[in-house]
């Protein structure tokens, strides 16, 4: 948790430092805030994924994504034993760097830290005094995954954003219970204001 907080502060520091740049800004760049929802995660994985992004005057931006499970698919798979973890929430502070000069459409790279948690299941051998038996044990996990992503963003009408994002991070806490890899993939629809 300590590492996670330090990471957040560092990312925020970098982003705020870039906020001081100024130049002539176009109709997109003059809008500094954006909210997005991830249509792909919602439809394909039953995960609600909501993001906020704050743009600086330069090529940097920073933001926060919150994700939580809303569908039954993960839970059913977990109960039926097709997965050992049931991700329940994810909070992802991130910082991005725009790879081109255009504001209307551009590639970007992203560094993020995912704070994620959920349920973990494993089969344990227990004793009832004279005999042993195997049982399914369920526990909570919490972990932090630093990672990176790449993406492409395009604006329609200077305000409506369509964004594709793919990336991954490696969990570094609770590694015996949490998923090894956290994937960050999305097809986001957003509004910039």
């Amino acid at each position, binding site marked *: 948790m300590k590492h996670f907080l330090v990471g957040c502060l560092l990312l925020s520091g970098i982003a705020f430092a870039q906020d001081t740049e100024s130049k002539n800004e176009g109709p997109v760049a003059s809008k500094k805030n954006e909210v997005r929802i991830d249509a792909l995660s919602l439809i394909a994985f039953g995960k609600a994924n909501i993001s906020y992004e704050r743009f600086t005057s330069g090529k940097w931006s920073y933001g926060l994504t919150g994700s939580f499970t809303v569908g039954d698919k993960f839970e059913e798979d977990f109960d039926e034993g097709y*997965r050992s973890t049931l991700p329940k929430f994810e909070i992802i502070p991130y910082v991005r760097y725009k790879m081109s000069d255009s504001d209307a459409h551009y590639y970007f790279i992203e560094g993020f830290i995912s704070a994620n948690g959920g349920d973990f299941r494993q089969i344990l051998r227990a004793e009832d005094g004279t*005999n*042993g*038996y195997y*049982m*399914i044990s369920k526990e909570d996990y919490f972990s932090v995954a630093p990672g990176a992503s790449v993406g492409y963003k395009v604006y329609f009408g200077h305000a409506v954003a369509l964004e594709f994002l793919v990336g991954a991070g490696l969990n570094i806490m609770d590694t015996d219970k949490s998923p090894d890899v956290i994937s960050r993939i999305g097809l986001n629809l957003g509004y910039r204001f």
Partner: protein
Amino acid sequence: MKKFTHLAIALSALFLASCDDEDGFYNEKYIDVPNLVQVEAQDVYQVGDNMYIFADFSRYLDEPGFSTPLDIFKTTSGAQGFVFSYTFEREVSPGVWQPVSTTTQEMHVVNGSVQAGSFVLATAVYDATDESYEYYAGFPLDAVGNYRISFGVNSDSTNEIELRSKTQGNNLFLNIISGTSQLDNSGFYHFTVTN
């Protein structure tokens, strides 16, 4: 842009690798307990005889590596049976083996339950009175010839017999891998039927 493409490929590969992170069957437990199923061997088999397969094992099994017996009934949340399968083949010409089919009605079932066709799906049924799983059923031998039995019809095992619990719902499935010395190195039990 070239560096960006390389970075994109690397991250995509990492993402795709992560897709397999959760593949698996986490309701399955495997243990090894030898000699749970046996072929009831006799010196001579004649047409009209039955070839019997039997299993009779307690709900409390010694498990290698542990000092306490394993309660397989409790482990499986009260599974009412353990299923295994086997098949009979007859040598129709030298080195050529053909499956021998029968029907559930033709099987002589003493204990447990059976579904028979081109292979036998056997269930050792739980007997609460003596807290054991029991199966005892005979396969009709209708013709002379060399026969062989295989327990690998639904598995990759050769000299092992796999028994799987009939677990209900999302509870734990127990798979018992039971080694046996009755089978040859190819996983067959051979016998001959005469007139």
